[in-house]
């Protein structure tokens, strides 16, 4: 019996929202790392042991994914009620990077399920008035792209709500330090017509990398590297085209996590729709308003 689902076949029923979205990209030929999903129906959060059949299936799927030699993968939670209209649950459920070997993959899947009952998750749900733990969770297992640079991208400026540009935040290595706010990332802005309006280097002192030891590790970068742009303008433009394709598919503004490998290939590793903020009215010249704001401070 095949419980495990190939990422290309992932949908809301068999894979949870997060993995379903990635599946959709794959079906539209947008580069997403290959992978498979343990469906919500297989979820056993409270069980003592692990269903041996399922474990074997996961192991088989993993080996098939790796195509011969064991490769590090990313194991991600995809709870059924995540990324809904009301709440994103961002940072509530777990993801595991650099998981190597079938045994560890199975362990990671189990740990994801256990996350449904974590204090953090329970408290979050209670705050939302959603009651007890979520019904179920899918777990995605995807090949980990060796990230030269990674980060996030928004097709709407998250602060101002302007949709006339795409905002990219980039850093060296994997994207978690950017998402977690551990580094000051580069900030790149790309106009709708493809012009790079800004490529401001941040201070990327720390990078998350997959070390030779086979473990994820945080390394400190020297000052020169920290301030060198993690993306060239051309790469930024390429990335922006990809992200815009995702937004078009979604029919809404989106927020993507992306990775660029040493070959310069752009991969989307997560994405979701963002509720569009009210579009800032772009006033033409309104002297009284600007005078009030900047000359008199009476606005």
């Amino acid at each position: 019996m095949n419980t495990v689902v190939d990422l290309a076949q992932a949908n809301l029923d068999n894979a949870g929202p997060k993995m379903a979205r990635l599946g959709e990209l794959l079906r539209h030929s947008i580069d997403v790392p290959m992978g498979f999903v343990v469906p919500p129906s297989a979820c056993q959060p409270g069980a003592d042991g692990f269903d041996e059949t399922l474990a074997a299936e996961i192991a088989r799927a993993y080996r098939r994914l790796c195509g011969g030699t064991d490769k590090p993968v990313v194991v991600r939670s995809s709870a059924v009620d995540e990324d809904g209209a009301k709440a994103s649950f961002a940072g509530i459920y777990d993801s595991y990077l650099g998981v190597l070997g079938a045994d560890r993959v199975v362990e990671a899947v189990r740990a994801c399920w256990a996350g449904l009952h974590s204090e953090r998750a329970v408290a979050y749900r209670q705050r939302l008035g959603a009651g007890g733990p979520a019904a179920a969770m899918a777990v995605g297992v995807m090949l980990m792209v060796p990230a030269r640079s990674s980060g996030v991208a928004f097709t709407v400026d998250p602060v101002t709500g302007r949709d006339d540009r795409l905002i990219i935040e980039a850093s060296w290595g994997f994207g978690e330090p950017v998402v977690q706010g551990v580094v000051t990332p580069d900030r790149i802005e790309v106009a709708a017509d493809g012009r790079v309006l800004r490529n401001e280097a941040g201070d990327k002192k720390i990078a998350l990398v997959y070390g030779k030891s086979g473990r994820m590790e945080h390394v400190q970068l020297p000052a020169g590297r920290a301030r060198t742009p993690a993306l060239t303008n051309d790469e930024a433009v390429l990335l922006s085209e990809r992200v815009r394709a995702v937004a078009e598919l979604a029919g809404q503004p989106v927020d993507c996590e992306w990775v660029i490998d040493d070959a310069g290939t752009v991969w989307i590793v997560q994405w979701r729709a963002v509720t569009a903020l009210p579009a800032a009215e772009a006033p033409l010249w309104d002297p009284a308003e600007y005078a009030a704001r900047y000359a008199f401070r009476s606005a």
Partner: protein
Amino acid sequence: MLSIEDFITDEWYPGFAPSFGHSPYIVEPFRSFTAADKDRFWFLDFHWARGLTPLGMIWNEDGYSWGTQWAAEQMPLPQGRGMTQRIAGTHTYAAVVPVRNKREIAARDKRMRAYLPSFLDRFDLIWRQRRSEIEISWQSLRSRDVSALSDDELAMMLVEARTYYRRLFEIHFEMMYPLLSNYLGFRGVCRELGFDAATVAKFLQGYETKISETDRALWQLAADARSGGLEMVFATTAPESLAVVLGADDAGRRWLSRLADFLEAYGYRTAGTADVALPSWIEDPTPVLSTVAEFLRQERPHDFDAAHDAAVEERETAIDDARGRLTRREQQVFDAGLISVQHANFPWWQDDHNYYIDLRASLPVRWVALELAERLGTDQHDDTMFLFWPELLDLAERQRGYYGMSKTIQARREYFDHWHDRRGEMPKMLGAIPEAIDDPLLIEIYGLDRGYMEAVRAEAAGVRVTTLRGIPAARGSARGRARVIREAGDLDKISAGEILVCESTSASWTPAFSWIAGCVCDSGGTLSHAAIVGREYGVPTVTACGVATSSIQDGDDVQVDGITGTVTILKGVQ
């Protein structure tokens, strides 16, 4: 360290109890310091570094108090009622008159929003109308031969001249407030778009004004002297004696007649702003002669066209670069704002209006006052500069006699000289000094930004610096000997390649920018005179250093960096 208490006194210019109530005012009159002033913030105004004579005090009454307060009600300024002044010795301190009531601020804000857009749209027409008004009154006053007037006519002209003076400054601030506000609005938007203040100033440089027209004519005079073979004469004769020496031969006389033509067109101008105590160039052409002498010492004449073209090119490049960094929607806002500020161009107006207002408003009052001195038989020809307005008017209307006043005038001259010499020790700020100034207009015009406040506070605390920081007003870098100059009349003390260090410059200082290597000012923002002219002439300029005139000594070897806004004292004079 002097504080406000040191200046609260009933003793003032000898022989005159300050009865400031004689002049009409709108919200708050000009007067001397009292204890009630302790809780307000007062700053030393850089325009009148010599100090004001008794008659010169009409500036504070009419120009500074009345003018700003009147204009503040026109737009109106939402949170301010203009400015008021106090006197310490002979030196002027100014403060903002605030509006405190929130409902009133809201009402004023509403009126401003109705007034400002249409003013800006019609700016061209309005300024032309005001200029016409000014020219008509000016021609009327100028056409009179004061020596031929009867005593009654002279008295009437005195009053008329003062009315003219006051009206000019109503116009001055009526124009300035909306122009400056629009500029600050545009600059605020530009900052939102990611451009710094120095860049924004470039967008508006490179427009010819009446003042640059004057400077070109001065250079032409120098060229005429050169082609007339008069270089040696200028090089070897003191400016005060030039007129006599030149009159001795044909070539010299030919040049002198060119000078007369020049003075007829451009000579109705004083070496300072609105100060009746200052002579015009026509009255005393020494400043013109020494400027021409300085120009002749230059190896190459200042190439106005090249400098102008460079300024225009820098402007256009800056605008293109700026637009290239914007999205299409942002470009629309930027373009619309740029058109607005170019059309109602504040930096241009800041320079241009000096010709019509600041540099000649005081002359009609001065002509009458000098004529009165003549008729009264005073000891020195300008003794009437040391009478207060009520006294002068009484004398003109023959309500009193002159008998016994010469001693008082002499005492007042000494008082003036005493305070003139003390200018260097006058505190830059008095009263309740805030951490930072919140008023964008104040910051922009006077340069009272954070850096300025810090520098002045540090100096008061005894910190001595060799590196000064200010606003990078005009880019470029220069190194040279510093000359600390207090008033425009002393500009002949600075030679080519030297660095001008002063409280601030004004229109009368412009010619010097064609020979100095750099300029460092205590005060002034990016739209101050030094900043505007520095950019036009390509002279590295740093303003708002706060402590330039107190830290740098005459003869110090200094380096001026107009890009970073730093001034370094490389070697102090021994």
